[in-house]
């Protein structure tokens, strides 16, 4: 047990140590030293997680560090929960994070603030670990807010650009809107259950009975938090803007790990969601809508990172659709495979951007197939994986979700398949425009250094074979992932796929055919592009509408930002200047006026004073006499 306590503490502590060392030593450390140190810390953290994972006995262990907040009958410990779910998250997050750290050594080595970059990246890993390891909602919330802050810092890493700063603030504030839900949910749960420990809440929730309004309220509020962090409708517009950050940040935070925190939270509280069918419906349909939304907008983006960002939004929608129908293991499986191939895609995009000296517009790319061979091959693997081509990982994970939704919600299934087709179109469009045809830009492309390509290769392998983690029964697999999570996530126990193998194969076939058609369509349109005008700027109305994310930004500006500014202005001009300040000034004015008026009595005429005095004496005497 002692060893487990130590290891579990080391997992978050090592990246924190890395933050402190690289942060305070940023002047002394060279770019490579800082990067190496930061990577080593996360790597060690990965090793610790691996040891814990391998030594795990399938139970739930609480590592109690100290009592954090103790008031009256409230006691919130600072403790970690080590179980199958948190271990799995720890393992793949630190794993992917290590690769991205190593990649960043190459990607960021020219930046003057590289040590700061690694300090913040390490801090992010620390916060993410708290998020997944917390044994109660409040410790998770530490990480939840922490990753939000790191996200803010890293999006605005190049702080001289006002647009980037705006993007950072937007991300943070939209996350905070979600956090309102999270905080309220925690408050409600604490007052209802008297604790915030996951294990105890899940025990006590059973006594509330399915469909209890309190549970519906809790889960909806929690889900509001999840929509903020995981960029779901309606709080999604920050994610595409978040691409302002350096590309490794986009890969680590805004694709592989942080944005899946919402899914993790739903899986963590699966018991509550199972008891609130209404919320499950909401989660499902929000997920489905977001999947389609992201996929449509992705079709018309010309910025390589923006395409991937919308793709992330869309894929996160899949995950929520999965947990919405109660297919938690499928959701977590997709979280994992998505982390592999989306991190790979972003890193590949980063490699391309690096190769082209900062160019991000795919209209000015093309023909990079031969010039950046490793990047091309790995990117191709990732594209096949995300499109769902067997036997790559994406095929299995996406299939799990589709099979799960088909059972109870065929309409949702159909929309998700449509989104999968769009996914195939925009991903192959991206692939063809970037790597096929002839080069349309002016820079001289070159392959990235080893330190960047090796992580690409490792991730490509993982994206390719990641499917083995959860091979479904129809292919003779044993669904390892599901078996693994079953010990920790009660919701997994309720997963019963009752559709027959035949139906499942049919579904797979339909999806696969449609996806291949999509790829073929993309090839037809973009396969051999040689000219510069990849996509004209003037598009028909519908296209323009979609490309501008259905005018969501404009809508929010109209509904939220402008009224807020108006309110702020008028509170100030009316509330302060016209009401509140006159109140204070009024007290002063009134005293002044009164004194001014009273002063007139003092004429300076002594006779008058004497007379007044006499009068006063007489009056006093009269009063005394009358009283007597």
């Amino acid at each position, binding site marked *: 047990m002692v060893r487990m306590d130590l290891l579990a503490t080391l997992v978050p502590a090592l990246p924190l140590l890395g933050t402190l060392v690289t942060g305070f030593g940023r002047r002394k450390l060279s770019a490579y030293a800082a990067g190496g140190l930061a990577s080593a810390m996360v790597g060690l953290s990965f090793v610790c997680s691996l040891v814990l994972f391998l030594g795990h006995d399938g139970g739930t262990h609480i590592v109690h560090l100290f009592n954090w907040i103790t008031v009256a009958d409230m006691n919130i410990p600072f403790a970690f929960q080590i179980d199958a779910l948190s271990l799995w998250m720890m393992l793949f997050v630190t794993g992917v994070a290590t690769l991205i750290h190593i990649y960043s050594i190459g990607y960021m080595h020219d930046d003057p603030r590289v040590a700061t970059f690694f300090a913040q990246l390490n801090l992010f890993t620390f916060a993410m670990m708290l998020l997944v390891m917390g044994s109660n909602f409040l410790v998770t919330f530490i990480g939840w807010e922490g990753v939000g802050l790191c996200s803010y810092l890293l999006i605005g890493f190049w702080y001289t650009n006002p647009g980037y700063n705006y993007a950072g603030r937007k991300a943070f504030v939209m996350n905070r809107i979600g956090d309102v839900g999270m905080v309220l949910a925690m408050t409600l749960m604490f007052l209802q259950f008297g604790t915030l420990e996951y294990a105890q809440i899940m025990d006590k929730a059973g006594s509330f009975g399915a469909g209890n309004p309190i549970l519906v309220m809790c889960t909806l509020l929690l889900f509001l938090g999840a929509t903020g962090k995981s960029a779901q409708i309606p709080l999604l517009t920050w994610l595409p803007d978040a691409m302002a950050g350096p590309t490794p940040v986009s890969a680590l935070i805004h694709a592989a790990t942080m944005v899946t925190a919402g899914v993790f939270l739903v899986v963590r509280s699966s018991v509550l969601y199972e008891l609130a069918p209404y919320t499950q419906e909401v989660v499902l349909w929000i997920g489905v809508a977001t999947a389609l939304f992201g996929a449509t907008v992705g079709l018309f983006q010309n910025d390589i990172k923006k395409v991937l960002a919308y793709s992330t939004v869309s894929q996160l929608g899949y995950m929520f659709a999965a947990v919405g129908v109660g297919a938690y293991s499928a959701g977590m499986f997709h979280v994992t495979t998505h982390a592999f191939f989306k991190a790979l895609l972003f890193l590949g995009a980063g490699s391309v951007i690096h190769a082209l000296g900062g160019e991000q517009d795919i209209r000015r790319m093309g023909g990079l197939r031969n010039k950046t061979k490793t990047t091309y091959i790995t990117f191709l693997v990732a594209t096949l994986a995300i499109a769902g081509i067997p036997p790559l990982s994406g095929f299995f994970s996406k299939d799990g979700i589709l099979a799960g939704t088909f059972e109870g919600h065929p309409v949702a299934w159909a929309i998700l398949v449509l989104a999968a087709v769009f996914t195939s179109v925009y991903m192959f469009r991206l692939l063809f425009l970037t790597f096929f045809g002839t080069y349309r830009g002016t820079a001289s492309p070159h392959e990235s250094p080893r330190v960047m390509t090796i992580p690409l290769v490792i991730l490509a392998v993982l994206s390719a074979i990641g499917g083995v983690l959860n091979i479904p029964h129809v292919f003779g697999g044993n669904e390892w992932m599901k078996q693994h999570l079953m010990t920790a996530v009660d919701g997994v126990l309720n997963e019963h796929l009752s559709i027959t193998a035949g139906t499942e194969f049919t579904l797979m076939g339909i999806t696969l055919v449609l996806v291949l058609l999509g790829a073929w369509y993309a090839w037809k349109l973009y396969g051999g592009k040689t000219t510069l005008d990849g996509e004209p700027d003037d598009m028909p109305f519908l296209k323009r509408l979609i490309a501008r994310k259905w005018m969501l930004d404009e809508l929010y500006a109209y509904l939220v930002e402008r009224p807020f500014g108006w309110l702020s202005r008028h509170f100030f001009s009316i509330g302060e200047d016209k009401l509140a300040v006159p109140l204070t000034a009024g007290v002063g004015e009134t005293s002044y006026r009164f004194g001014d008026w009273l*002063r007139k009595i*003092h*004429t*300076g*005429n*002594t*006779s008058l004073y*004497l*007379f007044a005095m*006499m009068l006063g004496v007489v009056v006093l005497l009269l009063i005394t006499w009358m009283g007597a």
Partner: protein
Amino acid sequence: MEDVVTAIRVVPLGHYFVLSFLLFGIGVAGALLRRNILIIIMCLELMLNSVNLLLVALSAWYGDAGAQVMVFFIMLVAAAEVTVGLAILVQLKRNAEGVDINQLNRLKW
């Protein structure tokens, strides 16, 4: 001392009251109506002494020496007051060129 007391007691107490009130009333009227500060000060003295008269009479009639202590106290105050008052008066006469109280109305904010 005994004969002084007897002498005072010759006059009935009511007469002392009337005289004292008359003197006091003259003093008040003078202080309020006259404009010359010298006269006003004299009127103030008159008022004080009217009180003294009453106190002495009462002291004799009731055989209480306490009132006489009060009389000495008042005389002391009156002496001090006259000293200061006359000094102010002289200064006024020199600086303000006049002792008319209605012209001395600069005593205001």
